[in-house]
């Protein structure tokens, strides 16, 4: 037991102290921080330069209103769009367009908007510029002209624009999630996103830490250090020490991330304020139920032990990291299949197939967890999935322990499956 701790300590300390761990642990919250704040900060900093745009308005009625509709200002308080009306007769139109396009070419103008006389019937306005891929700007132009044209059409029929907008108001669909205690919570699709984010996080963690176990075993085997180790400690304890040591690294990382996330959400307003933003313009941080976090950790721990055991077997069978990459494929499949099934389970969390699949031990971490987030099943069902996973873990540890014991001392050709099965009887 104390030897297992020695192995665990070595795995834990060498990893915690490694550059890779420090970088990953710091980079991840930084990445989240950037993802959360970048849009806020970017929207606050309007560094756009003023744009000079010529407008040829053949209708002669749209321009004045357009000037009001496109009234955005830059950070320094100037108009963002410096509009310049060019009056031209129908006969000179072609020549004038040519001339203005040449000005765009040599940089005197940023853009040219041509509103034809028949815009009320044909619905088309032309815009010329060097860069026409700024979606935001294009949408702004389209909306500005559309609203003017629509209003004119409505007036032409003798209706009041106010009345029309009053009559064509959209209906809101408000969604409520019925929780376990019967209480209802307003939920506008966050559940789906939250489920997806948490499950992806679980999936990535299981693969990443499982693969780390595999790598650690293969490294020990290929560097031939393993026999020196197993002469002092039972292979089973070696395997257990490695799995627990690397798992502790994972939990440490989660803890650090959770603390960072809590810090970010606690001080989010203040940080936005620092950039001169409105503190109360609440960042929509999804509220995660504490029980879901508990389930997340439990399914990570159980799932990790189950998959790390499989990964340890792969690591013990192969001779090199390259061989390991190939042979880990079946293990990864056991994680990808539930990810594919997840869409179905989100839509039908209580279908018989969903219930059955979520109790299959290799699928439980992802599918049962999905069900818990979407529509929490009865506690009995959850407990059953725990029990099945624990039985599966015990069975896997028993079988893999035997494969591990033989595999780590087998050098040379990669063994075939029948050979590996034979090891179970050595």
């Amino acid at each position: 037991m104390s030897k297992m701790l020695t192995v665990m300590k070595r795995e834990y300390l060498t990893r915690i102290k490694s550059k890779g761990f420090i970088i990953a642990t710091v980079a991840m919250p930084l990445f989240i921080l950037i993802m959360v704040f970048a849009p806020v900060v970017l929207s606050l900093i309007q560094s756009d330069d003023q744009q000079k745009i010529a407008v040829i308005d053949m209708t002669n009625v749209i321009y004045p209103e357009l000037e009001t509709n496109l009234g955005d200002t830059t950070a320094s308080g100037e108009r963002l769009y410096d509009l310049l009306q060019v009056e031209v007769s129908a006969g000179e139109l072609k020549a004038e367009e040519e001339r203005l396009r040449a000005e765009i070419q040599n940089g005197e103008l940023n853009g040219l908007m041509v509103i034809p006389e028949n815009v009320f019937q044909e619905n088309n306005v032309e815009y010329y510029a060097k860069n026409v891929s700024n979606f935001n700007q294009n949408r702004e132009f389209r909306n500005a002209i559309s609203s003017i044209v629509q209003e004119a059409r409505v007036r032409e029929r003798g209706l009041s624009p106010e009345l029309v907008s009053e009559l064509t108001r959209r209906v809101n669909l408000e969604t409520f999630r019925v929780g376990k205690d019967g209480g209802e919570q307003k939920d506008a699709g966050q559940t789906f996103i939250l489920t997806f984010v948490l499950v992806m996080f679980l999936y990535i963690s299981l693969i990443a830490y499982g693969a780390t176990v595999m790598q650690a075993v293969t490294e020990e085997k290929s560097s031939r250090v393993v026999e020196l180790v197993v002469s002092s400690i039972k292979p089973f304890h070696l395997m257990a020490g490695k799995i627990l040591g690397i798992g502790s690294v994972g939990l440490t990382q989660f803890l650090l991330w959770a603390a960072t996330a809590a810090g970010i959400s606690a001080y989010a307003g203040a940080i936005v304020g620092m950039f001169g933003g409105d503190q109360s313009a609440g960042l929509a941080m999804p509220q995660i139920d504490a029980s879901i976090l508990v389930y997340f950790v439990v399914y990570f721990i159980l799932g990790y032990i189950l998959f790390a055991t499989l990964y340890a077997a792969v690591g013990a069978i192969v001779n090199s990291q390259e061989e390991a990459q190939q042979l880990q494929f079946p293990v990864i499949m056991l994680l990808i299949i539930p990810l594919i099934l997840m869409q179905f389970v989100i839509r039908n969390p209580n279908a018989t197939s969903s219930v059955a699949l979520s109790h299959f031990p290799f699928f439980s971490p992802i599918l049962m967890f999905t069900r818990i987030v979407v529509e929490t099943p009865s506690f009995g069902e959850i407990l059953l999935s725990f029990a099945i996973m624990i039985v599966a873990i015990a069975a896997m540890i028993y079988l893999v322990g035997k494969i591990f014991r033989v595999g780590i001392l087998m050098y040379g050709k990669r063994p075939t499956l029948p050979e590996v099965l034979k090891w179970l009887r050595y």
Partner: protein
Amino acid sequence: MLALQLTDVKKSFGKVHAVKGLSLSVEPGTIYGLLGPNGAGKTTTIRMIMQIIIQDAGEILLYGQPNNQKMLDQVGYLPEERGLYRKMKIEDVLQFFGELKGMSPGEAKKRSQTWLERFNMTEYIGKKAEELSKGNQQKIQFIATVLHEPKLVILDEPFSGLDPVNMELLKNTILEMRDAGCCVIFSTHLMDHAEKLCNAICLINRGQSVLEGQLAQVKKGFGKRNVILEYDGENGFLDNLAYVEQVDAYGNYVEVRLSDMSKAQELAQHALKHTQLRRFEIVEPSLNEIFIETVKKG
């Protein structure tokens, strides 16, 4: 009490019978050689002693007790396939192996310092294993094996991969350890080393012990049938002599094995008649010869 005793130990891997009914006994405080050709079952035997693999049948006793983990903590083992954690510092590696054998961190640190000094390697203490030469890595592996001051040390092919200087260093270390009361078992196929170091040997072939006992006894049992001759002249006089079984010519001298020792006088007369004889000596067979002879017979 015997340091190690194997009684009728057997191990098969599927259809391959790697070790079939091996028995041997090692006296404490001696150097014991486990000899045999490649694939004879030496490494499998050692792995069974270390409980890395479990025997199918038979008994293995360490100092009169079953080879459980508690007893094995008093054994040091240097495997044939050996390596180090490449990215780990030497001091951490030694610390780790010391603690694996149940030493306290402080003790492990102190002892590794002593051993590094003994091997003139203190400058490497902060280096990573991968920065060391192969020979130096082997010395670190050896230190990791003996760090916890075991009563019994088992070394599987300890001399392979060492240069002559380090071979000498290892040989002397083994002798010093024996003088300090430690029992050393090592496997090798270099008969030269075994002959110089061992008090007793076991020759294993095809999973069975074919020759075991005190080295002197083994040699005596094989009989004195060899004669070394040094002379000036042609060696054709040795052809067609009925009692000459084998002739090994080494340029400066020949070693001749006789079918019957009583013919030695006859050979001496014969040699005097045909050459200028400078040396005529009756010698024990070398371990190398015993090895080849025994293995061939099997």
